[in-house]
């Protein structure tokens, strides 16, 4: 109780932010019918996300695959279960590590971009200008970014997954002298539909939350350049935590009911 009373201000501020965030999200969803009018902006955003994040996401996936194959490989070798490496790597990457690592990297990459762009527009009154001239910043800025993220995060994550599994394969063949075909067989053999459902739906949900949170933080920016810096940090930290929480919820809840 004491803690609650002492942090009353912070808690109310958090509750207020949550409320405002929900309002913005509802506003945005109401504008989904305006997709066609904002086609160009959506395609531009998709292009930006794709070109700017491809490299780090693939690199992230690749290294996770390599490290996972090494760690798992050395342990399994002790038990003579080396042939299982492929299965563990593919499951681990497709279901958990691929989406999470991509999610975190995208939270940093596209999240900071959204917040700093929209935040500086807020500070230089460009958002006020949009409203003043009768256009809706949520429709013009948030909606395209959300849709672009929701569409692009899945293929990016798939590429990261692929890079990770291929990386794992090369490491296993080079350092564990595991035949590539054995690795592939094991990698594909253990997979079930629900692994793919879980692994493929995560990026879509991450895309929604990362984009809306980062845009919201941008629109709330105040206090000059220091304020902008603070917004960007808050945006990346919040979306990263949300990525981890959603990942946990997916793994635990969705896994249990499916």
């Amino acid at each position, binding site marked *: 109780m004491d803690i609650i009373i002492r942090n009353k201000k912070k808690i109310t501020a958090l509750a207020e932010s949550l409320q405002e965030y929900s309002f913005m999200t509802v506003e945005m969803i109401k504008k989904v019918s305006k997709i066609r*009018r904002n086609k160009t902006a959506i395609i531009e955003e998709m292009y930006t996300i794709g070109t700017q994040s491809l490299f780090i996401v693939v690199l992230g996936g690749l290294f996770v695959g390599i490290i996972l194959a090494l760690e798992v490989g050395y342990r399994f070798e002790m038990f003579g279960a080396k042939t299982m490496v492929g299965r563990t790597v593919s499951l681990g990457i497709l279901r958990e590590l691929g989406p999470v690592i991509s999610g975190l990297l995208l939270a940093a990459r596209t999240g900071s971009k959204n917040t700093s*762009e929209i935040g500086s*527009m807020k500070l*230089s*009154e*460009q958002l*006020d*200008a949009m*409203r*003043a*001239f*009768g*256009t*809706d910043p949520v429709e013009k800025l948030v909606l395209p970014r959300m849709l672009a993220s929701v569409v692009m995060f899945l293929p990016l994550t798939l590429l990261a997954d692929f890079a990770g599994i291929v990386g794992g394969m090369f490491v296993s063949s080079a350092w564990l002298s595991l035949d590539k075909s054995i690795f592939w067989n094991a990698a594909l053999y253990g997979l079930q539909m629900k692994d793919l459902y879980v692994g493929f739906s995560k990026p879509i949900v991450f895309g929604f939350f990362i984009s809306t949170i980062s845009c919201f933080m941008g629109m709330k920016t105040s206090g000059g350049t220091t304020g902008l810096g603070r917004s960007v940090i808050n945006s990346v930290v919040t979306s990263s935590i949300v990525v981890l929480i959603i990942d946990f919820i997916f793994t635990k809840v969705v896994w249990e009911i499916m």
Partner: protein
Amino acid sequence: MGNNVKDIISLCNVSLKLNGRKILEDVSFTVQEGETFVILGPSGAGKSSILKVLLGLWKPDSGSVFIKGAEMSSLNENQMMPLRKKIGIVFQGNALFDSLNVQDNISYFLKERNSISERDIDRRVKECLAFVNLENAENLYPEELSGGMKKRVAIARAIAFKPDIILYDEPTTGIDPINVKILEDLILKIQNEGTTSIIVTHYVTSALRLGNSFALIKDGSIILNGSNDDILNAKDDFVKEFFSDYQPDEKFLQKVNK
């Protein structure tokens, strides 16, 4: 108030607080169709805030704002849109979109009105650029423009859709004397087309050259509201001090005395 047919804008007893601080207190004035209303006052007096309240960007804590007979605070963001589309504004810091070039800045809000064809938009942009004497700046970005040019682009953007009302927030502040003259001439040219204008400024000379009706604001309250006779003959100390630097030229005095 608000009933007179000729009143295109009226504020009635508007008060505004931001973060617990009083910004505006009991502000009332009316602007008639075709008139040029000048809001004078020192920095931080609340001049820009009046424009934000007027456009519904900030909701007043009490009082009401009528634009063309509609009460702004009874409308939600979406309902304000059609009303705002009749008002052009030149922001104090221009608020040009820095990711777009001059042409796209001017056409941005034109494109929002679906009914206009691509060709008509191009034609209108050219017309506006010619109007503000910037025919060759089409492809430049805001960061490549001088202060005076930015202001002229902002004016071009505001008049592009032929608004009934145009608001200027300190259009000549921080601009060299030659460009001040150019901008003032532009404002007069727009006035002559019958557009109702509100000009915020702290330059007395500009104010008297451009306006028909004046309000002097200090610490969020209007302390004087009237014609140029009223302000030049006022007895109030603050008003006298504010106008003390002003040396009216002969022609102007003759005009006033007539």
